[in-house]
């Protein structure tokens, strides 16, 4: 059995190496850095408590991520009634591509923050962590079909909200370039 000192040393190495990445994911899930910090601490605490059981160091990050994503859902459930997302939308400046892109992302972020946590988790895993549907399913402990349906529902939701805000998603080519006007 591993000694307590060895476990603590391994854990410290893990935290040093991976905490920034966990914080980024936690921020995308929670929408603010303070809650993200708390979520990461909670996920790491559960990971540390399970360290002996996890065994293989290669499995630690997957374990921590799984805790991070599922714990966030629980928190959201307990706290969502206190959440008051802003209804005020940023003004749309005209003509400037950079400004347009900025407003587009700002709106996108607001709408992402309004998604139910399960849908948001799927989007973060698919489009930030670049996980496949099966990897996402495995991490969240759900069926691949559920990932697909949640992802599709979330994207439809975002598209509709952006359309209401006056932003139509244009078709692009395979490299993501918009056709010339």
């Amino acid at each position, binding site marked *: 059995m591993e000694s307590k000192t060895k476990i*603590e040393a391994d*854990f410290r190495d893990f*935290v040093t190496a991976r*905490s*920034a990445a966990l*914080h*980024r994911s936690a*921020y*995308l899930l929670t929408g603010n*850095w303070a809650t993200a*910090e708390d979520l*990461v*601490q909670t996920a*790491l*605490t*559960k990971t*540390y*408590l*399970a360290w002996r*059981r*996890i*065994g293989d160091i290669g*499995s630690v990050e997957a*374990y921590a991520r*799984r*805790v991070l994503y*599922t714990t966030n*859902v*629980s928190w959201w*459930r*307990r706290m969502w009634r206190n959440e008051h997302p802003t209804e005020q939308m940023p003004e749309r400046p005209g003509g400037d591509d950079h400004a347009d*892109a900025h407003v587009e*992302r700002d709106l*996108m*972020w607001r709408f*992402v923050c309004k998604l*139910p*946590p*399960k849908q948001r988790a799927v*989007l*973060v895993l698919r*489009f*930030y962590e670049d996980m496949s549907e099966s990897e996402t399913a495995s991490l*969240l*402990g*759900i069926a691949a*079909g*559920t990932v697909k*349906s*949640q992802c599709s529902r979330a*994207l439809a939701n975002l*598209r509709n909200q*952006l359309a209401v805000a006056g932003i139509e*998603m*244009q*078709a*692009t080519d*395979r490299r*993501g370039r*918009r056709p010339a006007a």
Partner: protein
Amino acid sequence: MTRELERVLRATFEDRTQPVPQQSDGLADVVIGRARGVRRRRALAGSASALVLVVLAGLGLVLGKMPFAAPEEKAPSGDNLPIPVIQGLDVAVPNPSDKSGPYLQAGDGTRVPLPKDQKIGDALRLPGGFLAITTKDENGTLAYYPTSGPAKEIANGKALAMALDPTGRQVAVTRAEGGGVRLDVYTLDGTVVSTDQFKDGDVLAGWSGDLVMFQNDIGVTAWNSIDRSRVDSPSEKLMRFLGTTVDWSTYVTYEDPEKTCTAKVFPLEAFRVGEKYCYGEIPATERMVSPEGEWVVARGMNGPDRPDELVRTHLTNDLISPGPGSMANLGIIDVQDWLWEDDDSLIYRTSEGWFRLDLYGSLIEPLPIPQGSSAYPVPRAFVG
């Protein structure tokens, strides 16, 4: 169009996560400190899992099967081996290999002897000791056994059952009396706080806040320990008590037409259903909510021909989001007994022995209780 949407989404995520704010120094130290605090609280033991234990006992009675078999007259062969100290896990040992009489073994190795001529009917770990019901012939005795010092008898009678309240200060005790069921609520020093009478067939199922929950063949009855009033669940929904939530409201499962739902209900409002999730899958014969309401583990959901397989779902996830639930097969079969170790860890027994399952990682670890032994892990009470 979707590709463009995905592109903007990726760019949004990249934008939002740059740069990461300065990390707090000593994060690992903070986390290790928190983990030590959690371990200390776990070691102290406590009450939501008391509910789980009693729910199981209740289900056992309802279904005609007790979760932990009483020790047999002839000790099983596994009882010829000593029970090792299992760090952090409390164990009931009905038939020790040295024939010294039944005892309870705390996770630190401390042995608490039980009356030699009695059998262990039920046991629960709580701060500073154990609550245990021991039986001789038809009579049972409930006593508090501190890990050091003399035992304190609380109650005795026929068909005793117990459930510790969420504060860990009171214990509800039922016994068969006069063709019905008598309920007494005691403090742990044996003082009676309240008494009432129930009909035969009402089975003590646990606590939810100040309510003592009873299960019967048509649903759930909530008995208010403050004013002794009672509320029955609606008869058109066959409700089964699953446990309590983090805010001390109540989880139940019930049958709607063609589906089984797990729901948060409000007993004092005529069992009004709040958040719910209805599973399209085959109803489980038995299910359990984890102490903090994070997970549901069910047995028998894979079909009537596979009654002993475990599935689990992330309940908090299912309750808030429409769409398919997260019920997943754990790949564990032949499950005979089960109990929660904490909110993320389940302990179960198959014909091959006892195991611990980590629900986040689906990690399985065998426990060193000898195969075939009548010894079993004692549930903890999680005091709120």
